[in-house]
């Protein structure tokens, strides 16, 4: 009897834990399974390519003829166009070498391949986005947002500066808040070099009013007057920001919005961290003046 109750309780706990685990399945599926879904997509792409090869090898002899009739110089443009279209035009050019029936099989094969190529093309961008996010990105994604005062901001932000220091933070993060005054000092210092410090507070995304109010208070308390911006959390830039796990993280971007060096984890109120950031800044400056 007692035992039953104990087991029941334990099972209850197990259930609670597994429910918590299921919650993840639903809510963070996008985050945690992005890599696995990318893997799944890669697989299907492989499968699709295999299908193409099958189609070609089914009428091996005919296709050999087509290929031998082709120009040897395959240009960039032919590579970037749909392979099915490319084959179709090749078949069209070598039309007189084949009987009507042969011509028909070749064109239907080429049409099939074109359809498969379209499927692959549809897969590709999704996969790029996922793997790009996983690698924390090499460029800041396109975005349209605004600063905490409501002024619109977009990617042209980067073009206006020789380099841009982007600091990711959130309100409840003590080390983040403690470096706000140092970031402000840095902003004043790098203005002369054409640089700018921009803050992105992940709690202000989607113009979350509570988060913005709290962030403004903290910035004011720390005497920080540099720009802080936000955008939609569902945007590519939002994903970039939410993909950041350790706070504070400080990136340096060049004029084209590309990441320079390794992002810095930790507050620049620590000397060694400031030195690491300065290295990235110097690299960005060197890159910009070399242009």
């Amino acid at each position, binding site marked *: 009897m007692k035992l039953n109750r104990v087991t029941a309780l334990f099972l209850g706990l197990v259930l609670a834990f597994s429910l918590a685990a299921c919650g993840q399945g639903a809510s963070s599926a996008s985050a945690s399974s992005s890599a696995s879904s990318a893997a799944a997509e890669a697989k299907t792409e492989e499968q699709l390519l295999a299908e193409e090869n099958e189609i070609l090898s089914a009428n091996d002899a005919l296709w050999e003829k087509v290929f031998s009739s082709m120009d040897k110089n395959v240009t960039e443009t032919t590579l970037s166009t749909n392979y099915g279209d490319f084959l179709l035009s090749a078949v069209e050019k070598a039309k007189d070498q084949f009987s009507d029936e042969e011509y028909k099989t070749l064109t239907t094969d080429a049409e099939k391949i074109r359809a498969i190529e379209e499927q692959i093309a549809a897969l590709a961008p999704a996969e790029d986005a996922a793997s790009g996010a996983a690698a924390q990105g090499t460029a800041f994604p396109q975005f349209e947002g605004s600063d905490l005062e409501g002024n619109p901001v977009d990617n042209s932000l980067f073009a206006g500066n020789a380099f841009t220091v982007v600091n990711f933070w*959130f309100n*409840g993060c*003590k*080390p983040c808040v403690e470096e706000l005054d140092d970031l402000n000092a840095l902003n004043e210092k790098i203005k002369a070099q054409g640089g700018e410090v921009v803050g992105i507070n992940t709690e202000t995304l989607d113009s979350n009013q509570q988060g913005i109010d709290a962030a403004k208070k903290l910035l004011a308390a720390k005497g920080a007057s540099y720009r802080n911006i936000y955008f939609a959390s569902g945007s590519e830039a939002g994903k970039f920001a939410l993909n950041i*796990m*350790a*706070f504070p993280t400080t990136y340096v971007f060049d004029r084209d919005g590309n990441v320079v060096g390794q992002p810095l*984890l*930790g507050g620049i109120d*620590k000397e060694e961290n400031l030195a690491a950031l300065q290295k990235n800044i110097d690299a960005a400056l060197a890159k910009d003046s070399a242009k």
Partner: protein
Amino acid sequence: MFMTKKQAQLLLLAAGVLMLLFGVWRGEADTVFSKAIRLCMECVGIG
């Protein structure tokens, strides 16, 4: 008379539930969540 063990247990269970609910009501769970989903660098000993 002093409380029996059973009374103490019931009282504590009730207190636990009430504190939990009060804490959720005033928004503590969000603070916990925002800290728990991000890497707390000073917590794990980085830096």
